[in-house]
């Protein structure tokens, strides 16, 4: 059994969002970087659990980006995984990234490719589906549970207003979300061990991007809250009906 977990680097949830270069680039000054929470808490931890169940499982991590991503990759390796692969290319559009991951997945012959449901920066929810299509594999997105029974896989995925159980078989691509696993904190042994785990750097395959970012903008500032006195909540209802016109 070989598992590949896609690890993305994102600004910390509390990072200040600002732009430079005429609003064309995200301002990275002072930004704390983290492993994309969906990749870490759900995809990676579930993969680690599967390896704990079956220690013969090979667990690799993949990241697409420059050498500045290595610190994040080591953090992920501190949680678990045998080795990491970084595709050395400046992050571009999701199709370029997915194409690099698909190439790594193809060469490594993985049975299961795991991603988080989306990254918290571009919120595209696109990588898993693109990788699945490029590899011609089934794709279960927004999965909250995954159980292996030989090469048969039972999953639960989100649907509007509920969930659905599905069955498919390996090889498979899955995007994971809350419910799949619980966040873990790396222990000292993991952190020490991560330093010596292999981190292979591979060169990218040539792919033409399909989209590019023409610019960013911040949402208009809120006018400020209109406070209604606590002894007159009826006024709130009136405002919502007559002014905001939402009820």
């Amino acid at each position, binding site marked *: 059994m070989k598992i590949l977990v896609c690890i993305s680097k994102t600004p910390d949830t*509390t990072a200040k969002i600002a732009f430079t270069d005429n609003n064309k680039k995200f301002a990275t000054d002072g930004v704390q970087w983290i492993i994309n929470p969906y990749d870490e808490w759900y995809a990676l931890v579930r993969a680690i659990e599967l390896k704990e169940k079956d220690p013969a499982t090979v667990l690799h991590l993949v990241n697409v980006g420059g050498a500045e991503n290595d610190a994040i990759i080591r953090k992920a390796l501190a949680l678990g995984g045998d080795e990491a692969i970084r595709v050395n290319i400046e992050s571009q559009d999701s199709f370029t990234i997915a194409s690099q991951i698909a190439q790594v997945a193809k060469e490594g012959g993985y049975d299961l490719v795991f991603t988080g449901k989306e990254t918290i920066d571009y919120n595209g929810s696109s990588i898993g589906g693109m990788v699945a*299509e490029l590899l011609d594999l089934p794709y279960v*997105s927004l999965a909250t549970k995954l159980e292996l029974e030989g090469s048969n896989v039972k999953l639960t995925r989100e649907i509007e207003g509920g969930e659905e159980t599905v069955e498919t078989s390996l090889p498979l691509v899955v995007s994971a979300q809350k419910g799949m696993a619980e966040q873990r904190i790396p222990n000292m042994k993991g952190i020490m061990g991560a330093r010596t785990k292999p981190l292979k750097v591979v060169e990218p395959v040539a792919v033409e991007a399909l*989209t590019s970012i023409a610019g*960013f903008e911040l949402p208009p500032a809120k006018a400020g809250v209109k*406070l209604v006195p*606590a002894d007159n909540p009826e006024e709130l209802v009136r405002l919502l009906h007559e002014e905001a016109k939402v009820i």
Partner: protein
Amino acid sequence: MSVLVYIDHTDGEIKKSSLEAASYGAKLASQLGVAAHGLVLGTVSTDLSALGKQGIQKVHQVKNDSLNQFDPGQQATMIAEAVGSLGATVVVLSNNVTGKALAPRLSARLKAGLVAGAVALPDTSNGFVVKKAVFSGKAFAQVEVTSPVKIISLTPNAFSVSNGDGSAEVAEINLTVPAAKIKVTGINKIKGQIPLSEAELVVSGGRGLKGPENWGMIEELADLLGAATACSRPVADSHWRPHHEHVGQTGGAVAPNLYFAVGISGAIQHLAGVNRSKVIVVINKDPEAPFFKAADYGIVGDAFEVMPKIIDSVKKLKGK
């Protein structure tokens, strides 16, 4: 040349998010001066000609019950074939659970650039540029699509449903149906509730409500307004409310017309899930709660005193 809208359905009904996508697709088609077509894979119990109200001119359907079970690989292959045979240059889907599985597959298959989670019509004055929310709603990006075929998945509740009086032509389309690789073995829907992702109004409760036994007032207000119910992360983590109600960074993201938050302090992780709501109301007894900074209306007060009065007032408003 045409804009092709993928029409998603469940339990025989077209999803509201797909009616939004149809309205968006039709507006885009007229902006580009091309035809607006719809594609329905599977069977529905409603009259598809009614998509004319949203501006769709022709609906193509593959009437095959097996397609009601969703396999994104199978459906992406079929949509790609339809794009080729109909000469579509733009495909529009909703960025709902189905669209999130389907749009990226279709993008990779057609080598067509995808804007996932569009919030406005494209600017086609110079190229093809589409606005989408990024950084969990804290900013927007203008994404330029450079490929010949373009795919847009539209954020639910970001575009209103048009209701004209047109009628669409409905025809069956002959597409190869590849074998499904994913078998649906069970569906567990929460009955009688409005799905959070589709809700126009959301009433949400936090730790300030002290315990699950106090959710009656949240449910009563939601019921009166026709709103969905939601909750903050600590509430879901303490199992006071089911996980699917959790909105925030790690839960679901919503963008309703009204987000009515009771007893939620508004941590940045919670705001990431709700900051695209059009109007935010915050009821909290702590005047320093960070949520007030993101709110449009607020009451600094005890929810247990304020909420019954609000419920009475809404009852009067609704004539109940």
